[in-house]
């Protein structure tokens, strides 16, 4: 059932500009004057971990209570249905879909990410409370897949939000997705799934990437 070969662990992005030097002060630049009052403008900060024994215990709890954000961003989201229903039943692993990003801890990117969807993905991701994890499912989320030369699809999702686990396939079978989640659990238990802190540290870089593809940027820069 578990075919781990389908799973790819992403390499860290090799090079990026020295964002600390180039850091522009983002003050909800995309918003009009009036709208700025309605959005918070605090940057996300990297979170500190507690002492190790405690952190191990908490990581165990986190890995056994993975709440998925029920936001089907692409066709791969169809795989979530067999996962949560009788045949695969991820609830036995302590996982369940949550309708609001506030309460979810795993964001499953379900395939191709159009630029329009990216906007929503970014907002939803930023509204999730840390520690938060991203599982990118389908080839399209890894390299664009069949949308390789599309004008409207992003190719590497981890340039925009940090991804913990990729699951390849077009589409991956539920078993593969399940294997991906198992991998994620391992990573969490090992304390290696720190995408949230990565995002906070490289916030400006991520923002720059996001803004590069999203032309009509009318969102706040800090989607708390």
């Amino acid at each position: 059932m578990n075919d781990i070969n389908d799973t790819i662990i992403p390499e860290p992005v090799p090079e990026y500009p020295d964002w600390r030097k180039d850091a522009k002060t983002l003050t909800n630049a995309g918003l009009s004057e009036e709208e700025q009052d309605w959005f918070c403008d605090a940057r996300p900060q990297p979170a500190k971990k507690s002492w190790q024994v405690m952190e191990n215990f908490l990581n165990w709890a986190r890995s056994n209570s993975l709440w998925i954000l029920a936001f089907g961003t692409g066709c791969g989201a169809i795989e979530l249905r067999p996962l949560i229903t009788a045949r695969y039943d991820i609830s036995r692993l302590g996982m369940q879909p949550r309708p609001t990003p506030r309460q979810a801890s795993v964001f499953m990117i379900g395939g191709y990410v159009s630029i329009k969807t990216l906007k929503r993905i970014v907002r939803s991701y930023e509204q999730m409370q840390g520690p938060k994890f991203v599982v990118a499912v389908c080839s399209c989320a890894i390299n664009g897949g069949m949308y390789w030369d599309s004008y409207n699809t992003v190719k590497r999702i981890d340039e925009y939000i940090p991804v913990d686990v990729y699951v390849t396939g077009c589409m991956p079978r539920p078993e593969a997705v399940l294997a991906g989640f198992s991998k994620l659990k391992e990573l969490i238990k090992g304390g290696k799934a720190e995408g949230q802190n990565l995002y906070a540290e490289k916030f400006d870089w991520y923002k720059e990437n996001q803004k590069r593809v999203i032309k009509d940027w009318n969102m706040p820069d800090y989607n708390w």
Partner: protein
Amino acid sequence: MVNPMIILAMFLLAAFATALIDKLSRMLAIGTMYVVFALAAGLGAWQLYFLQSMPDAQTMVYSAGFPAPLSIALRFGVVEAFLITLMNLFGLLGGVYLFKRFKEHGAGAIALYLAMLLGANGLVLTRDIFNSFVFMEILSISSYALIGLKQTKNSLIAGIKYMLAGGLASALFLIGVIFVYRFTGTLNIDTWIAMGNIPSAAYLVALFMVAIGVFIELKPFPANGWALDLYQSADSGLAAIIASVQTGAMLFLFYKLLPLFIPEMLNIFAGAGLVSFVFANLIALRQKDAKRLLAYSSTAQSGLLVFVIAALYLLKLPDTIILVIALGLFFTNFFAKAGLFWLAGIVKQDNLSAWGVLKKDSGLLIIFGVFVIGLMGFPPFPAFFAKWHLVHIFTATKAWIWLAGLLLGSLLEVGYLMRWLGFAVKQEHPGELSKSFSKMLAPMISAIFLTTASFFLIKLYPGLGAFNVYPLMALLLFGLVDYAPAKLKGAIAIGVLSYWAWFMLLPSLPLMGQVFAVILVGGSIAQLFAFMRYNGAAEGFFPFLTMLVFSFGSLITASTTMELFIAWELMTLASYMLILRGKKAKDAALLYIVFSTFGAYLLLFGLSLMPSTYPGYPLILQAGFLSIGWVAALFATGGFLIKMGALGVHYWLPSAYAEADDETTSILSSVLSKAGVFGLLLILMMISSYVKSNSLSMIALGWLGVFTAFIGALMAARQEDAKLLLAYSSMSQLGYIVVGLSLMSHLGWVSALYMAVNHLFFKALIFMAMASVFLRTGTRNMYEMGGLIKKMPIAFISVLMGIIAVSGVPPLSGFGSKWFIYTSLLEQGRYLQAGLVFFSSAIAFLYLYKLIHTVFLGQAKPNQSHVKEAPIWLIIPQGIFIMAIMAISMFPNLITKPLSQAVGNYIAKPDWLSWDGYNIVLNSPALHGNWNGNLVMYVTMGVFIIPLLWLLLVNAKTQKVKQFNIVFAAERPYKPETTHYAYNMFAHYFKALGFWVEPRATAFYQGVSEWTHSISATLARIYTGNGQTYILHIFLYMITLYLLLGVR
């Protein structure tokens, strides 16, 4: 002893001399005329003084030195002297008012005016019927001629109509006189009376013709079209004199003739007078033209007076009583009606809605108010006392139809007069007043005279305590200093009222009275702070506020039914004025006063059925021993329930509460409604000897209360206007009080009083907080607000405390009231009522959440970013009430024990109710239960603080975010308006239960109103404007009365 001939001679001499003097100097002629009036009035006054010192003096004077049949007799008794004084005073005032006319028209006008007054004076004095005819004609002809001075089309044709009608009336009179003469052989009225009844149909017909001749001149409905036109078109100064002096003189003539009439005739005239009173008032209801309205009002009033003297005569009451009552009515009318005509001349606006110009001169506005309120028969004006006694007399003689007619007509009168007052106070109008010293003097002096007389009347009236004067004194004194800054006046008012309440009111009361004193007076004083927020003078608040508070005091201390009623009416008046001060409160205030007056009349009738009380001891003390009949109780209860806004008669409540100024609404809701509770409790105490909890009536009252609570809560839940919501909430809460009172048990009354105290605290608290919100946001629509918690945290805390208390959630005191109500209901086996109470109290959550959510939570609106916390003056009362709520929540014994003790004086505390520390233990055979408010408070604090500490520990670093940082289906919101869930918040609820809140009361009252207006409009059609039709009316009227009389 003054020879009345002197007066007549003086007038004649002056009238003839005028032509000569006018040649010398016009001013001198006018001056001479004034001197004559002054002298005549002085003679009348002197005669009064003389008769007072020598009561047995001979008052009959014979013109030619022979006794009656051979010469004309004049009488100059007390009544005549009084009337002469009044009339000549009036002649003087009216003369001053007409100064410009006299100056313009010269000797002719002066002579005519003198002749007119001569006629009036003669008519009063003479005891000879033919002489009466002569004076009548002098009076009439001079007034015809004076009318002709204003040569406009309308004035002239009205004059012709008047002359034709007057001529016909005098023709009838004359024929009647000559036939009576044929039977009696004399023209002296006293001799006629002495001859007694002559058993002849022809004689009766002749008498009838004499009477109808006079009666037609008194302008009875519907034979009065000519008079209406006359009043409408004539010069206001002249109309004033005709309405007062001419009517007065004719009335007195009618009064002189009364002893001649057989009972059937008296009956007919009383009935005709009453019909005139009711129907003229009914038609007046839809008048838009001020002078025509006054015309209807005048005819109504003369109808009332005819009715009163005829009816009282029929009841064979002593002359003194008839005269005192009739003069009470007459005196008020005399000044008020003429005063209003004079004002009409100053305002110079036909349309009622244009009377807003009066606002340009607050003095005139006050005068206008005095006249209108006096005319309606509110205390302290003499008409009030007259009506009070009339009602008592009619009740005692079981003259139900007369009573009903009297009250109905009075109610209609209140309707249009108050509408008019509303226009004058509220409607803006750009017009100008035509003011001049001569024109201002007359209304001013009559207003002062009327007020002073009333003031002395209420001060000297036998059996009225000093407390009844306080409200009026407060009104007067604060009215005089109304230009002072609001803060100063507020401080003085609070100081004075506190001193009075603490040192004078409280010590004079039994415990139950003290409870109500705390609620009514204490509650008001605490809220007075809010009125100090106004910058500048804030005219119109403090006179009526202090009047209101003092009238609460006199209500509680009232020892007789009359004191009670006076206090009740003064309270109503003061609250009406306060409501009227609201920006758009014109219609709401009218609705309030009409309903209140209706309630007051029910109450008046109820009170008139009550046995006499012991003056000097507060009713609340006596109530335990007094016992009244169920009819009295029923009507009085009806009156009080209207003030409380019980279901069915709640129609006035929402709009009045909503449109009054915010601070006023707070007082209305939290304090004024408790006055109704006081009254209801009083009535229940008086019937407690034979009505028990399981009586059908009390169960019915209980259901009324429960449904009031239920419908009130449902209605509140569907309002979008915060004040309307709170208004319906008040209605609902008062429903609980009614249920509690209806239980007639110790526990039930304690629960009602506990609820009353609680309602005062939390409703005042919420209203004060909401007042500050309205002040800052400038709107009352809740959906236009939102997120104000960050801008106005204190207001939020107040509302939060308030709604926790309203909803009855422990640990705050609200739960206590719920606990008491349930236990008292269940203890008496009122299970189903308890069930519905529970449902209502659950519905309360709907509107309370709506209130706090849509205003303080949710999305803040961009246009309210400037909003800040309210001024300190609004926060002080909130602080007081929060502390009060906390105190009685923490230590419920502070209030439950005194209440139980107070109730225990009337219904003994049962053994099974006991206090164990703070634990109230109920061990009745029917019900066990307990409540320990103190412990609940501690437990709640404990279970609240521990999780809070945990959360602070775990959640130490929490990012504070802004309003749009919400999960919005991966999108971002674009407008706070569309993101704030507020409008029609409980749509689904009313999809299911909407049929309960269909506006049935509204439909009913609007139907009543439409029908009244339609009838009024239809009736008004008989006045076609055609002079011939009016002549026909007179004939048909005469024939109808004749047929009704049934003389064969």
